[in-house]
């Protein structure tokens, strides 16, 4: 999977993937949870009101202005951030690449860094010099890790020859990603390298999705 890992790291990664694969796909909520959820849904539900049955509610103008103020603050802050980014051409952003589809937001990161996370971490120089790119790469890595975990168990169902193709292909993509991470670590403001790296990650995500959809994998 990651040919650049040493045997100890590789073993840790294998154990982590195996442990993740054993987790149940679904979990039944604890008893008594559902009535509480139901109460909250019912409380928030909008009920139809027959005309004339209820008197018009009393206007309470004092309730809306804090919300409006907060919304205005968000809009102003957003504009400032956008303007500052537009005024800083030396900050290359791969989000500007029109042909790249933005990734969905990654789920919340765990509180502590796992060994895998530390190994695949975005180069420190990049985080300091190009936080936008570092954040995008972090999302790619997160998505890639999640897919790898879900694919790991499915590849066992594939024919040996196909498994070997999958292994070799992932090794090829990972080698390219390692190359580019190293290059970006020493030249963090190089937008071109960022584009190469995002392209490599997209190739990896796309490839993992294809593996997941293969006949024999997960059927």
């Amino acid at each position: 999977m990651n040919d650049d890992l040493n045997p100890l790291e590789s073993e840790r990664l294998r154990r982590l993937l195996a442990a993740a694969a054993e987790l149940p796909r679904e979990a039944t909520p604890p008893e008594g949870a559902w009535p509480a959820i139901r109460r909250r849904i019912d409380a928030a539900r909008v009920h139809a009101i027959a005309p004339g049955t209820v008197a018009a509610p009393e206007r309470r103008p004092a309730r809306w202005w804090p919300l409006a103020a907060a919304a205005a603050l968000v809009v102003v802050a957003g504009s400032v951030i956008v303007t500052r980014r537009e005024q800083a051409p030396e900050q290359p952003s791969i989000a500007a690449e029109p042909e790249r589809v933005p990734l969905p937001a990654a789920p919340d990161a765990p509180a502590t860094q796992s060994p895998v996370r530390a190994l695949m971490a975005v180069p420190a120089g990049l985080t300091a010099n190009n936080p936008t790119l570092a954040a995008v790469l972090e999302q790619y890595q997160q998505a890639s890790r999640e897919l790898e975990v879900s694919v790991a168990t499915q590849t066992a169902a594939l024919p040996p020859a196909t498994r070997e193709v999958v292994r070799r292909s992932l090794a090829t993509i990972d080698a390219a990603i390692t190359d580019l991470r190293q290059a970006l670590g020493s030249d963090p403001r190089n937008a071109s390298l960022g584009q190469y790296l995002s392209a490599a990650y997209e190739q990896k995500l796309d490839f993992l999705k294809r593996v997941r959809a293969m006949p024999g994998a997960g059927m």
Partner: protein
Amino acid sequence: MRHVALITGLVASAIAAGAQKPSQKIERGWPLDMDGAVRIHNYNGSVVVTGWDKDSVAVTAVIGGKMGLFGGGGRRGVKFGLESASDQTAPVADFTVFVPSRARLSVRGAATMIEIRNFAGTVDASALSGRVRISGSVTEITAETMDGDLEVESSPAYFRGKTATGRITWTGSSDDASLNTVSGAITVTSSTLHRARFESISGDVKFTGTIKPDGRVTLDSHGGDVSATLARDARAEVTIDAPKGNVLGTEFVRPAGKALQYASVPHSGSSGTTRTADLVLRSFKGRVSVAQP
């Protein structure tokens, strides 16, 4: 002693005969509208589909073993094949199929060679280790194979092709094409492209052809060589990015190690007012070359 040898020989022959499963030939047919949908499943063997000008589907299946052919549908859609989740459990089967030439065709295979010819509808074909070959006046193509090759001779309006280690070879034109491999080479010989992207991680990417005036074609490889040969009358702004590789061209030669380089392909008879196409060539480690005869 001779009896023992004879008995042993007979037993061996019996075992061999038992292991060699007899094959069966099944012929089926269904009526289908000319633009109806056809879905074919065969995970081991071959599927050869030919388009014809009849509103029906005909299949001849030669199946190793006793597994039968499932199939059914109506005038808007027909589905048939062997019920097996993968090529590990599927018997070897060879399908020869005729479908209405403008149908919407879907073929699912694993260790399956897929060939589609004389076809003018839409194609969605996938295999794992088999080769996929498509020809005809196909309008849309979505094709995938992992380590088999993908070979297309057609000019679909929309074309998506993917392999892992397999090569992609395409001859034709398109307004919207995207080809992608991990280590397989991509070779495109095209009369005209509009928007196209050809990407590989370690495979070579090669393009020969013309780009429409407002089109954009991108050739991208991490470790492979990237090369383009534009037709003599083609006009294009060429962007070359080869941080670690060599850049070779008929009009320009740049030393290796330059991060970003721009150049324009010389235009024959350019008026300067015509919209030009964009050609982007990128390779992180490989050589990049562009030429115009």
